[in-house]
């Protein structure tokens, strides 16, 4: 492939979990991230985020932290519908 110079078309749906994980780790470097495709169409996602940054933080503010981190992907439409679940390393998988 190298050197062909051909542009490669990447389906953003195929890499959205990588995008989400990278964005979250910008502000929450230890984040363990699971991304679920709820509808099979990659436009209704659920993300589970586990990080120590959530310790002592209310559910509303955890949600705000996740949305803030993912704002770029929201703004350009890569994320359309998103459900969010959060936990600290000590909390059970919600």
């Amino acid at each position, binding site marked *: 492939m190298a050197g062909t110079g051909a542009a490669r078309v990447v389906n953003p749906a195929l890499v959205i979990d990588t995008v989400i994980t990278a964005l979250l780790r910008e502000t929450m470097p230890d984040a363990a991230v699971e991304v679920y495709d709820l509808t099979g169409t990659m436009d*209704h996602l659920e993300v589970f985020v586990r990080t120590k940054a959530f310790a002592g933080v209310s*559910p*509303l503010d955890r*949600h705000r932290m996740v*949305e803030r981190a993912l704002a770029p992907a929201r703004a350009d439409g890569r994320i359309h519908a998103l459900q*969010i679940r959060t936990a600290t390393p000590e909390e059970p998988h*919600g």
Partner: protein
Amino acid sequence: MADLHDEIQREIAANPILVYGKGTKDAPRCGFTLETIQFFNSFGYPFEVVDVLENMPKRQALSEMTDWQTLPKVFIGGQFMGDTDILAPMAQNGELATLLEKTFAGSGVSPTIQLR
């Protein structure tokens, strides 16, 4: 903007459970709004849905007031509660039932569904 804030304050004061969403109770126009309506239907307390889909200034005012960018937005007893991401775990651990009982205490309203 001040007028919109007043309008919103009036609405959340007048409705113990208020959902700002896309579409109406009978014709929701967004999966999450539908999900939220079904969620509250299962509790049996009266709730109101205000359609702000086409009302961008009001959506902007709501987002600023709550520091929450997405719809639906739920208020219970005048308090911003986020959406079902926040409320579903509270329903599971019983916090929400307690909050709703407290919110409707003395109002003469009882749920049409027995929670416990």
